[in-house]
């Protein structure tokens, strides 16, 4: 009988958050700390000829750092080493850091920043992903001979094609990014505390930039006010800047971005253009798929190769394709570098394939639900990488659940409307999957670790690098540890993610914290339980007796890939992910044909999460992710002019409010995954994938137009409505 699995545990981080006691980076009281700021490029591409310092300013009152002051390598260490910490000569994007300043207070800092005059020679910049001169990474996935099917279309078969575009999107964590860095200790070690998702990423970056060993760089996570991927890679930049300033100023430095600066310079979702075509037999059976995926990576590599990989691997949708060819490239432009955002490349390609399925349904005269059902991957099927799906394939279960809940399978989608007046109602549909954990051999190479330490009083301390960023890591890990130990939740203590204390569990990304790190935690706890032994006495009594008898209460376990998993990085064949989450959405919208405004009234979603270890947390992830998806679908505009973000404040960077959010209806479907803790698999990103295609599908149902770009803003909808009206006249 399980005590903690499937039952909601009180969040350990909850009381401090509702009482205002949780300490975020801006709340940290650091006596003697100076404030830091960044001198930034005002052009998207150019040469930094020099930095002039106004002689009228007293420079002895502040500390300044330039590229020449970087003690280690002038790089932001991540995948490639192409991004400098501070520009030495070549400027590649607007807002690129040129110099750093620290001052005793905000006023003096503002004066100092204004007294630095960069001399810049502007150069021609590229902002068009289709005209980029440089490719960061290309990937090809192929199976069978898709080209042959399109060259020689079988009799009765039909080819459907489309080009779909998605714009960028801002994560909009409500806490801006920030760090406090401390000057080097006498032994040369450096400490930073901040808002972040991945402490060990920051640690590696600090070591490279400061020229110290990783263990000499200590990274401590503070309460973190949202991340959504936005605090995956950029904290490495900010922590290095803060540490460099603390070193030069010889005192602690707080470097906390204001909202304008955060919006203007931190990485957002990759804009994309996806061309896709598919051949279907007359009965709707998919015969072949071709997709051409193009992502704008911005000025530097950052995480783009991995984002592209996930985008390409999700371009097939959750469907059987006997033949497929998917090509993808991520290219360089002079936009601010794009980075991680929940979904990580998949929402872009999911939008394309789901829009194409709607178009195919219309052209084939088959109900869109029926077309998905006919082509849905089922247990025993293989994906376009040749991965045979054996475990936890909830595809048919989520389709059945969403149909039961909404009746969409009987809705006359796309039929002409009888309504009078401008306000049109529509229902739209999407079916999608999302690979949980890292792509390919990622988890095997990383071998994320978790440690447990038995404390003298018999409690168990969990040491993991996974961060609590709101999703509920603390409650989840407490529940998993208590269940696997056979102990009370009160017997479990969680260590703060502090690289001086916790092992590298891998980053808090890729829907991997529950399934991968939680799995390692459960295995470690099972091992400790075996050592301590079961019995009638309480856990703490048994644990204390075990320690008194000289028992070793320290356990460390590392991730072990499922037996038989294989992946070829070169050919992109094999098991692309350990397992997939499956989901289907139905959106209800009202479209005003006079204004192009869209109101998303309701969103139903059925989600296969394997097992909902903490149902309230899972629902929170699904509703929160779905609202981000709905916002992206029609409301959240992110654009750049001459490489500069046009929505650099909350007055223009619009995200949904309580009044904009649809009413959610979440159905949890549980098809347990034997490779995850207590049957769980990842859920964090999955809900981001399906919202936009469902909303666009609903707009099509309401109006008859086929929106092919996200966000479907009123302006874009009006353009399509006008074009439709002109077509009707002609």
């Amino acid at each position, binding site marked *: 009988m399980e005590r903690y699995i499937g039952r909601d545990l009180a969040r350990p981080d909850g009381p401090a958050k509702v009482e205002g006691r949780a300490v975020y980076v801006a709340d940290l009281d650091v006596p003697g700390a100076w404030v830091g700021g960044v001198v930034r490029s005002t052009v998207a591409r150019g040469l930094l000829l020099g930095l002039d310092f106004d002689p009228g300013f007293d420079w002895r009152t502040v500390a300044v750092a330039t590229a020449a002051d970087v003690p280690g390598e002038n790089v932001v260490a991540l995948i490639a080493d192409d991004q400098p910490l501070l520009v030495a000569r070549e400027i590649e994007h607007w807002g690129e850091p040129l110099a750093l300043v620290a001052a005793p207070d905000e006023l003096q800092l*503002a004066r100092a920043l204004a007294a630095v005059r960069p001399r810049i020679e502007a150069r021609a910049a590229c902002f068009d992903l289709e005209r980029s001169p440089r490719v960061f990474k290309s990937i090809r996935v192929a199976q069978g001979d898709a080209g042959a099917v399109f060259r020689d279309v079988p009799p009765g078969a039909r080819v459907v094609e489309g080009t779909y575009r998605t714009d960028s999107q801002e994560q909009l964590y409500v806490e801006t990014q920030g760090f406090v860095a401390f000057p080097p200790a006498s032994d040369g070690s450096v400490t930073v505390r901040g808002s972040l998702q991945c402490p060990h990423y920051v640690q590696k970056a600090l070591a490279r930039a400061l020229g110290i060993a990783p263990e000499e760089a200590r990274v401590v996570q503070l309460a973190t006010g949202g991340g959504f991927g936005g605090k995956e890679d950029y904290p490495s930049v900010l922590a290095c800047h803060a540490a460099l300033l603390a070193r030069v100023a010889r005192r602690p430095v707080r470097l906390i971005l204001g909202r304008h600066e955060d919006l203007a310079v931190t990485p957002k979702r990759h804009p994309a253009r996806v061309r896709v075509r598919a051949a279907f037999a007359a009965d709707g059976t998919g015969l072949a798929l071709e997709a051409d995926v193009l992502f704008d990576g911005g000025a530097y590599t950052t995480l783009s190769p991995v984002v592209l990989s996930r985008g390409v691997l999700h371009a097939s949708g959750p469907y059987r394709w006997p033949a497929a060819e998917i090509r993808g490239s991520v290219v360089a432009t002079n936009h601010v570098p794009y980075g991680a955002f929940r979904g990580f490349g998949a929402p872009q390609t999911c939008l394309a394939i789901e829009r194409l399925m709607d178009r195919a349904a219309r052209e084939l005269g088959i109900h869109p639900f029926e077309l998905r059902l006919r082509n849905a991957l089922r247990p025993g099927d293989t994906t376009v990488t040749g991965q045979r799906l054996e475990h936890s394939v909830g595809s048919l279960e989520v389709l059945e659940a969403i149909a039961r809940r909404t009746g969409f399978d009987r809705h006359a989608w796309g039929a002409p409307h009888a309504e009078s007046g401008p306000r049109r109602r529509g229902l739209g549909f999407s079916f999608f999957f999302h690979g949980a954990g890292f792509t390919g051999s990622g988890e095997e190479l990383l071998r994320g670790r978790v440690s447990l330490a038995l404390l003298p009083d018999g409690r168990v301390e969990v040491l993991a690098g996974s961060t609590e960023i709101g999703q509920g890591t603390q409650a989840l890990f407490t529940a998993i540890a208590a269940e696997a130990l056979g102990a009370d939740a009160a017997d479990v203590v969680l260590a703060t993610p502090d690289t001086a204390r916790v092992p590298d569990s891998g980053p808090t990304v890729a829907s991997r914290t529950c399934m991968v790190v939680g799995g390692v935690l459960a295995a470690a706890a099972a091992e400790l339980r075996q050592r301590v032994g079961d019995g009638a006495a309480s856990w703490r009594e048994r644990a204390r007796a075990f320690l008194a008898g000289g028992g070793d209460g320290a356990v460390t376990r590392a991730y072990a890939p499922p037996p038989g998993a294989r992946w070829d990085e070169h050919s992109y064949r094999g098991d692309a992910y350990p397992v997939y989450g499956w989901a289907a959405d139905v959106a209800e919208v009202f479209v005003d044909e006079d204004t192009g405004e869209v109101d998303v009234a309701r969103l139903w979603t059925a989600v296969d999460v394997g097992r909902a270890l903490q149902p309230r947390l899972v629902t929170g992830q699904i509703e929160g992710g779905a609202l981000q998806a709905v916002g992206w679908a029609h409301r959240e505009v992110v654009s750049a002019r001459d490489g500069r973000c046009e929505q650099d404040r909350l007055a223009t960077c619009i995200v949904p409010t309580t009044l904009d959010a649809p009413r959610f209806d979440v159905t949890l479907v549980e098809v347990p995954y034997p490779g995850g803790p207590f049957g769980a698999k990842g859920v964090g990103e999955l809900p981001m994938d399906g919202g936009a295609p469902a909303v666009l599908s609903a707009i099509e149902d309401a109006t008859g137009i086929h929106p092919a770009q996200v966000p479907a803003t009123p302006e874009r909808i009006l353009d399509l409505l006008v074009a439709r009206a002109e077509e009707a006249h002609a």
Partner: protein
Amino acid sequence: MKPIFDESDPVELRLCVNGAVRTLCVPPLRRLLDVLREDLRLTGTKEGCGEGECGACTVLIDGQAVLACLTAACSAEGSEVVTIEGPGFERARREFLEHGAAQCGICTPGMIVMTRAWAEACRRDGIEPTEDGARAALAGNLCRCTGYGAIVAAAVSTAREGFP
């Protein structure tokens, strides 16, 4: 970096914060937000944007919800200021925890303060607390984690106290 509003000479200011009278010497147009967070070290009130768009800095002045980032400290002279650290939030805090309405927590203090202001307005004016009412009351408070459903439910439960 945050905006600087007032470089003028400090003046003496008396504020009643969470029931205690505090005497400060600050520039008259210093933001109430900075007085609370920096001078009084009451850091439960959060800054999300500094220009009145996100609601994270919501506090009560004489029972009215105001944005501390847009309020000059001197304008609160002689008023009762209540922040998330103050008394009277027990019910709302409990409801937020029970509904799973706090995730990352950065919008939570502002949400809870606004919930209380709305709940008290409902009681005072005898308005039945509804989901639509809660959504209208909380429309100025941004949350990026929850999708709002849990927050709205927690707010309605809070405000229903005292209603049949």
